[in-house]
């Protein structure tokens, strides 16, 4: 008996050690790009051009000053714009996709199945497919150089909807909705006051995904935004990368990339604790 317990403990310890080794290796892989990025942000352009180095260079401040003092590179407004667009996209995408998922989940209506199938179908359509038409249309609607085409479309995010739907399927029994009705709660307020809190972990997860996706998006904004004051960070990075030979400076590019990543990491770390806590709370209740 004791032997058996010992051997099972040994087995457990072994499994634990393997887990740690694998985890440490993966953590190394994950942090390595950040490390290289930070190292390169401290190096001067000729230094970077000469090849790779694990040792930081001495140009951190120079690069920082160059990036922040470049009058054609509105970094601060770029951060604010990116934050605004990505933040609004995250909020709108999660709220309205949640609402849509709830509509399909909680109500019985004739077109329900058709609607669900339709969304599943359009979920597969690559964004790039309709880009040409999209940009044309925005021009006709006089929405060029405007944040609307970058924010509002996230209200209809099929992928977020799909996640919400799957989440509701596994966490929201219809009895709760029924109970709310008996308590005299209106349908819309049931969604806001009861369903949204239950979906918090899902909302947090999808909010991050949407936020990051929008934060890093270059393709569509580069076709929509024109004026300097409205540019987002990826556009500014691309602008640095297509600088003329006099100004071309990989040190600055890496510095701006590092600056661009910092706020996302911050938002992520804030939200990630929220998610993990939310998920754990949910499981305890369950």
């Amino acid at each position, binding site marked *: 008996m004791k032997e058996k317990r010992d051997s099972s403990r040994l087995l457990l310890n072994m499994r634990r050690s393997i887990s740690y080794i694998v985890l440490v290796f993966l953590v190394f892989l994950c942090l390595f790009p950040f490390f290289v990025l930070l190292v390169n942000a401290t190096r001067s352009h000729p230094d970077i051009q000469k090849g790779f180095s694990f040792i930081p260079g001495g140009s951190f401040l120079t690069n920082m000053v160059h990036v922040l003092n470049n009058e*054609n590179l509105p970094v601060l407004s770029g951060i604010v714009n990116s934050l605004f667009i990505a933040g609004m996209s995250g909020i709108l995408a999660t709220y309205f996709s949640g609402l849509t998922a709830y509509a399909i989940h909680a109500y019985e209506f004739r077109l329900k199945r058709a609607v669900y199938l339709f969304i599943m179908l359009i979920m597969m359509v690559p964004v790039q497919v309709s880009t040409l038409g999209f940009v044309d249309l925005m021009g006709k609607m006089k929405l060029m150089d405007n944040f609307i085409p970058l924010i509002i479309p996230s209200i209809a995010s099929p992928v977020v909807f799909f996640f919400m739907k799957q989440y509701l399927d596994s966490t929201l029994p219809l009895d709760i909705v029924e109970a709310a009705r008996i308590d005299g709660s209106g349908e819309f307020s049931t969604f806001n006051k009861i369903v949204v809190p239950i979906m918090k972990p899902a909302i947090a997860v999808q909010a991050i995904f949407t936020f990051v996706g929008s934060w890093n998006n270059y393709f569509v904004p580069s076709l929509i935004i024109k004026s300097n004051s409205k540019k987002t960070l990826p556009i500014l990075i691309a602008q640095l*990368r297509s*600088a003329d030979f006099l*100004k071309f400076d990989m040190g600055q590019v890496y510095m701006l990339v590092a600056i661009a990543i910092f706020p996302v990491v911050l938002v992520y770390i*804030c939200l990630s604790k929220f998610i993990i806590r939310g998920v754990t709370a949910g499981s305890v209740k369950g």
Partner: protein
Amino acid sequence: MQKKLLVVLLIGTMLLSSLTGCSSKAPKDTSETNASVTKAAKTEDTAATDTEDTGAEEAGAAQGKVLNIYCWNEEFKSRYTDYFEKAGKLPEGISVNFIITPSDNNAYQNALDQALLNQKSAATDDKVDMFLIEADYALKYVDSEYALDVKGDVGLTDGDLADQYQYTRDIVTDSNGIQKGTTWQATPGLFVYRRSIAKDVLGTDDPDKVQEALNDWSKFDQVAAEAAAKGYKMLSGYDDAYRTFSNNMSAPWVDGNKIVIDDNIMKWVDQTKLYTDKGYNNKTSLWAPEWAADQGPEGKVFGFFYSTWGINFTLLGNSLETPVSEGGKEEVGNGIYGDYAVCRGPESYYWGGTWICAAAGTDNLPLVKDIMLTLTCDPVTMKQITEDTQDYTNNMTAMNELANSDFQSAFLGGQNHIKLFAEAAPKIDMSNISSYDQGLNESFQRAFKDYFDGIVTKEEALENFYKSAIEKYPELTK
């Protein structure tokens, strides 16, 4: 839990405040533009009739209030600011607006095309007034109705343009022989070689004697073999010599709608394959870190094809052991500073350059003319630009003056390279350009990289080139 809630709240308020910041600003903006639009619209009718028969001077009063310049980086902006705006030449009441779109993923041309196509319906102060182009796709805009004739429409005279290098004018001359753009810089290219390696291989580092040894491609190949025997590489990458071949094609890339592969281009293919197989090159690509490293103290490469701007900035930067930003000085002793020299090389070519066009429909013609005149035709300003920035400017008189002075470049071991540039620039012949050059040159080099790498055969590489070319330009055929 409450702490976390606080964080979320904070982010929320941050977003909200930026939202309200935006929304409170937005109405103001639109009302402003609306006002200026109506104002401009009123003056437009008179301006349009005026400019045609009365001269540019009188029309000046009726100019639009905003000059919009489309470009992809800040190079022109700094020239404009330093030599036009700071010189006090900007009329009062007009503001200049640079619309910078990066060239990544063709974004610049997409934005410019869209703006030009909407030019007619755009509000007066939103119209494109000037736009910048590069040589490789210049004809796309020059051969269209969207660029104005710099003489007939803008009002520059033959006298104004006489001092510009011919090739810079050819590049922006449309199929009817009308010049539709102008530039402040000329970018003739030379062959930059390492003095120490030349001494070892050829027994001399004298530019004239080296030039003699490299005077044509067969001599060049011979030196490559000798250099290889001593453990050097003649060139760094596959595409180093490409421009010298593509600038000297016997006919344009496209005849009617048919893609024509010039013999000179195939000569590049054969030469590069030979160099690769025999180890005369280092298999790098332009701008790759390996390529830059080959130009530094550890490099074993005989030389590089570089034009005006590349030598004093890129090459110089790459040659230093300790970069300037880390306390290094630009002087002999730091890396291989002083070990480079220039000669003409086997063929004349150019590399780079930016041209300015006036957009059809501009409401600021007099100002556009003034800018073109000052920055691209005025010898005093242009000489000043060269002296301040070492940019080689597009003015023969001013450049010849420098060429015949006792100007010395310490970086090139005391050589007066301006003299060589001044000799090379008039020899460049760019009459064979086409509006497809950008896409076709790019596709060709990429397709043949696989051939040099030994992954595909020559025929397969050609096939891949055609595929990519026709994807880019559906009207073309094999």
